[in-house]
């Protein structure tokens, strides 16, 4: 286990470096946006003097490196600063949104990951059968439609007929069951979008191994096809599958803006789009940093899990 701990610490350290680079890029990118908060707040009729005064008041007249430094030192201490638009602490604004986003991501993942694994394993087991073709065609069609289209189709079928709400209203004191019911449609939409990728990787990774000598050996030991796939192929196919799952989980956290907008879901993606429109740079930076952290952490977990599943990497002495 010692080797794994060392690896986790190394990757975390690298992750911090990555986040630093990302924060510089984010800051630089927001600098490139035309216009700033002061001109947006005051509108087109503002005189240059009033804009300049507001800039001084907001600290926007400082040179960029100084502003970056002030922002970064705050973030390290857990202080994301104050929203320039609403004057509320950003940490508070984000807390609830982040919770909602993670909730929806986990919900969709809880549906999509088992579904993708089971479909992928069955497709590999019965490869080139009718089931395999239907599963592949279905998954490919689901991934080929734009998310908003899938979302509207689901609303048309499931919300119009009154089974599920088309708009998500969340309150902090909702019971879990109600929450799951209220967010079912966005979760289902996301499931349809991410399942195909994971399913096809599971299928391909398993089939790739079916020609190996140890699979032939398993067949010559008289094992059943299901047992061969589950016990002899799957453990050796886990590394690529885990990586694709991590990639899709990262997408579920960072890439769901469209779905959030369609279902009016109060998540991070929507807040980010709003904040870009308002030139509320501090909020945009904070959210981008959260997204980057999610990517770093999920990739780290994928690497660690892949290593744990491979005895050759685990026991290297």
């Amino acid at each position, binding site marked *: 286990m010692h080797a794994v701990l060392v690896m986790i610490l190394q990757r975390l350290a690298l992750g911090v470096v990555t986040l630093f680079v990302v924060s510089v890029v984010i800051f630089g990118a927001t600098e490139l946006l035309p216009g700033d908060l002061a001109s947006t707040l005051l509108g087109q009729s503002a005189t240059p003097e009033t804009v300049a005064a507001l800039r001084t008041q907001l600290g926007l007249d400082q040179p960029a490196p100084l502003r970056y430094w002030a922002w970064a030192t705050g973030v390290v201490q857990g202080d994301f600063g104050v929203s320039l638009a609403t004057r509320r602490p950003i940490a508070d604004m984000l807390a609830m949104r982040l919770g909602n986003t993670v909730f929806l991501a986990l919900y969709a993942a809880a549906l999509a990951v088992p579904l993708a694994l089971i479909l992928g394993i069955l497709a590999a087991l019965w490869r080139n059968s009718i089931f395999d073709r239907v599963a592949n065609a279905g998954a490919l069609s689901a991934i080929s439609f734009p998310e908003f289209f899938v979302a509207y189709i689901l609303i048309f079928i499931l919300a119009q007929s009154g089974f599920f709400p088309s708009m998500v209203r969340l309150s902090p004191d909702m019971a879990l069951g109600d929450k799951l019911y209220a967010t079912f449609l966005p979760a289902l939409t996301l499931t349809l979008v991410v399942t195909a990728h994971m399913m096809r990787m599971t299928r391909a990774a398993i089939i790739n191994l079916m020609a190996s000598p140890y699979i032939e*050996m398993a067949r010559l*030991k*008289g094992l059943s096809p299901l047992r061969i796939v589950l016990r*002899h192929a799957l453990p*050796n196919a886990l590394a690529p599958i885990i990586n694709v799952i991590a990639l899709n989980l990262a997408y579920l956290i960072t890439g769901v803006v469209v779905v959030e907008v369609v279902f009016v879901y109060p998540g991070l993606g929507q807040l980010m789009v709003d904040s870009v429109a308002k030139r509320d740079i501090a909020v945009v930076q904070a959210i981008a940093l959260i997204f980057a952290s999610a990517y770093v952490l999920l990739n780290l977990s994928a690497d660690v899990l892949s290593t744990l599943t491979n*005895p050759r990497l685990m026991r290297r002495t």
Partner: protein
Amino acid sequence: MTGEVLLQIKDLHVEGRAGDAWLPILRGIDLTLHRGEVLGVIGESGAGKSTLGLAAMGFARDGCRISGGDIRFDGIDLRQTPERGKRALRGRRIAYVAQSAAASFNPAHKLIDQYSEVPLLTGMARRTAQAEAVALYRKMQLPNPEEIGFRYPHQVSGGQLQRAMTAMAMACHPDLIIFDEPTTALDVTTQIEVLAAIRDIVRDYDTAAIYITHDLAVVAQMADRIKILLRGQEVEEADTRTMLAAPKADYTKSLWAVRSFARPERPAPKEAPLLSVQGVTAGYGKIDILKDVSFDIPAGRTVAVVGESGSGKSTVARVITGLLPPRGGQVLLDGVPLPQDYRARPRALLRQCQMIYQMADTALNPKLRLRDLIGRPAQMYLGLSGRALDARVRDLLALIELEPDSYIDRLPSELSGGQKQRIGIARALAAEPRLIICDEVTSALDQIVQEGILRLLDKLQRELGLAYMFITHDLATVRAIADDVVVMQHGKVVEAGPKAEIFAPPHAPYTELLLSSVPEMNPDWLTGVLQRRQ
């Protein structure tokens, strides 16, 4: 050996898919095996040996089908038995031992778990299965039998894996075991241990076996009867001693004759050596693979470097060619030290020393035609182009006994294994070198093809005055072609000298072990060696 009939195969036909057509792999094979009997099956690669072994389990690889004939195992018609019924036999009453245990053990599970898998499915308790595994590991003379099963395949050496796989095959006390070239991938010193362990356990359990191999000497030790296959058909079958003493078919006689090629002795040269390796120490990372290695290669002679895998034979070649700069010592060509790194050597020096590799399959660029494969070094080192280059390539093809007009525009995929190796030789010759390093060039080839390559190398040496450094673990090859022998073990030179000296007693202890481990055609050889060693 007149027990009841266990396996009866009649007029077996197996076909393999090639594009849209089905081509025959086995054409009308008959086979009878009694309880407790060991049948050796011999043939070149592509003769259908493995296909026959698998068919005895009612199994055909993907892309193959059993298209005709009758397979009866203990009265059960395997061709009429549904898949589920055949699964109930496999692993339980008919077991299989594969050629490469390293590839055939699942890397994700411990050895003992793979051993226990089938016993557990038949209802045995895990504790009982593991206790039996340990007993079998002990019987197969594995080190630390209590503990070795709890390792993963990659933590165990090749010879040990092969024994662990035999133990796994024994798990349910099968009536029949198919051994598919179980020792082909092993060194002679390891092979002898595995052979002895397999032979004893098969006898003790009175298990019938089909022993597939291309090594005649090995099968002579293991089998009661020998069947010889050629291109999917039986050549002849007889009991082992009869077959060895009086083979009937011409093909069998030609197989027996392979080992007769030997080059006449030549007097030792007087002049200074062409290449001299002096006190070389080299390795990867912090580990020294080579420790103070010294030997000479005289011009126009063949120096064989022998030793088991891991002894540093190929590393020496990497140092000589400059691929691995040594930590100490030097390599002299004509008495002048060579730059250690090949990048520091001018072309005129690089030209002097060329390599031929073990796996001709992977050593030739599959996208290039022979014209370019052979022409490239001639172009690079000798500056040939246009008509001169074309003529040179044709000369080289003629030199390696391939008809220039029909081969010059072929791709490597359109050649047989032996032809590919010939192209490897032509490519080395194209640079007009004085030394060619042959790294296990015949190990991947069948004996008859090996013979052809060795004769070709010998002819080229006589015509062109080449020196060879011949890396091999096959002592039969050494006997056939070497002038001088260097014996290596654990990165050190154990013994070096003219062939006659090395092969004549007294030997260094390791040379003795190596020489006495080479299987001989005498069926009593294995028993004799084991008795002498005790």
